[in-house]
């Protein structure tokens, strides 16, 4: 095995985007115009959502409310849960998550900003963003998910670097 082992082995994935995947089936909830004590009201609403047994992702705090993602089949349930909030909420169905895989993404400086720029500059509205050690997750309209996936594959898959 070893002693004559002059054969070289590929070790690390190349820098940049290695794979793009799309997950469908989400809805996005926006809650806005909370007049007073915004954090207490956010917690009250999250409590209602949790008691309804609805799992949420991509929670983002906004100055007067918050937004989050839910599984699309629970969208109709959300209308009932949030009814006490009056008309200060919207539920937008047909959202998808575009997962962009890039190993060690945080150490590739500017890559995350570059992905967001690529999306926005091409007219795609990104609703939410999250990241992990090896991937970035972008929430967009279902109708734009495949376009974004293709754009990122085409523009951000970095060729091997040669000085």
């Amino acid at each position, binding site marked *: *095995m*070893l*002693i004559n*082992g*002059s*054969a*070289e*082995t*590929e*070790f*690390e*994935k*190349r*820098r940049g985007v290695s794979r793009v995947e799309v997950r469908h089936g989400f809805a996005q909830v926006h809650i806005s115009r909370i007049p007073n004590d915004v*954090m207490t009201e*956010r*917690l009250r609403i*999250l409590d209602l*959502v*949790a008691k309804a047994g609805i799992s*949420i*992702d*991509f*929670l*983002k*705090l*906004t*100055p007067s409310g918050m937004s*989050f993602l839910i599984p699309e089949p629970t969208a109709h349930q959300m209308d009932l849960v949030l009814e006490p909030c009056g008309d200060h909420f919207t539920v937008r169905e047909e959202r998808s998550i575009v997962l962009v895989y890039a*190993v*060690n993404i*945080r*150490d590739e*400086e*500017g*890559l*995350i*900003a*570059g992905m*967001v*720029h690529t999306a*926005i*500059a091409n*007219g795609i*509205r*990104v*609703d*939410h*963003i*999250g*990241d*992990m*050690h*090896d*991937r970035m*997750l972008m929430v967009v309209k279902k109708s734009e998910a495949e376009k974004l996936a293709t754009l990122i594959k085409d523009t951000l898959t970095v060729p*091997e*670097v*040669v*000085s």
Partner: protein
Amino acid sequence: MKIKVMKFGGTSVAKPEARMTSAMRVISAKEQGYSPVVVVSAIGRKGAPYATDTLLNLLREIDPNVEPDPRELDMMIACGEIMSAVIFAHTLKTLGHPAQAFRGGQAGIRTDGVYGNARIVGINPISLLRSIEQDKIPVVCGFQGVFVLNEGDPGGELTTLGRGGSDTTGAAIGAALQADAVEIYTDVDGVKTADPDAVKEAPTLRKVTYDEVAEIAHLGAKVVHPRAAEIAMNYGIPLWVKSTFTDDEGTEIVTRETFPGRRVTGVTHTGKLVYLQFDLIHAAEGDRAMLESRIYETMAKYGISLFMLNLSPSSTGFAVPRSQYPIVEGVLDGLVIPLSGEEKRVYLVQIGSKPSRVVETQASLLSSLGEVCRIPTLLTEGCTMVSLVGHEYMQQPGVFLDVLSTLVGGQVTVLQTSDSDYSLSCLVPEADTNRAVKLLHDRFKLAEVS
């Protein structure tokens, strides 16, 4: 041949006593029938005479206004590991165990051509194997390799591997040699549920999956670097994190197939962030996308790392490392964004509540062109990202409520949140870091985890 790769971090090789302890661990492995291969970091951490930062300063002190060439920077900082490897090899020799020091290139590590952040493209371990065959202990410089542009070129260009480079060297050599184990030695007992500075009673995790450890490292814990975890995972090499200075059994990094993981794994924090929130509510609706596009394009162009991104119809925001904030301020404060359209509006970014001289000057120069729309940008300095890491729990209803109510109930202000399949992060004031970590650690009963 049973090979064990043993990687020693800066504190494990910093002083003669520490080196002796580390060397005795190597000898013990040899006596147990292993062929040890050692990988070392530079001697000592920040401030130590031969630590990486000290070597960098030798160049930067010449003239702080002239940035050294990346090629020369790599040659300079690689000296720390070279010294460390030679000293460690000689320490082993004085203990009666012949050893040979290897630079990254001599150990057969080839990289791509990115100075300062190179990636390993291949390893030819023949020289290490010859050394083992001659009953010597190879001691390899971590953090470095060589880039060969054309086959047959003499020598190759020395490159360094960037953050976590020595861990990456250890895992990659383990993979190349098909080692029985890669052991990462440090000054803590293993991977803990939280930083012991924040939670003294934080226990050591006995097993943790590659994914979890990579995410923990990504979110700020100083454990195995994600690159090293990924190499070990891809090649099926058993990976351990152990203390040089105690006999604790350490943490074994395993696959999800052999260990299903736990509900919550730990709480991490990554500090020294600055949060920027760009208010676009007064911008014309049709202009907002272009404004956002310009802001993110600028951040990409200047290589800024972004955390906690937030996009909404009326604003966009993100956190940046404090170390990069001067660049961000320099390129965004006073940035003029002219938009072509019928009305030819001009936008001007203003960071902070009071306009800087740059913003005032730009506004004055632009006034003759007509209306200049400001983009007020809320600046929050001194932030930290505190994260709850776990796999099973993140999909359950109520997790956000649990985390937010725990922090808010503990009088910690939550500025923003972010999440993924493995984690939930909150941006909090830096002054509250330890309290936030402790609150979450207690709430999720992590002191009971093993």
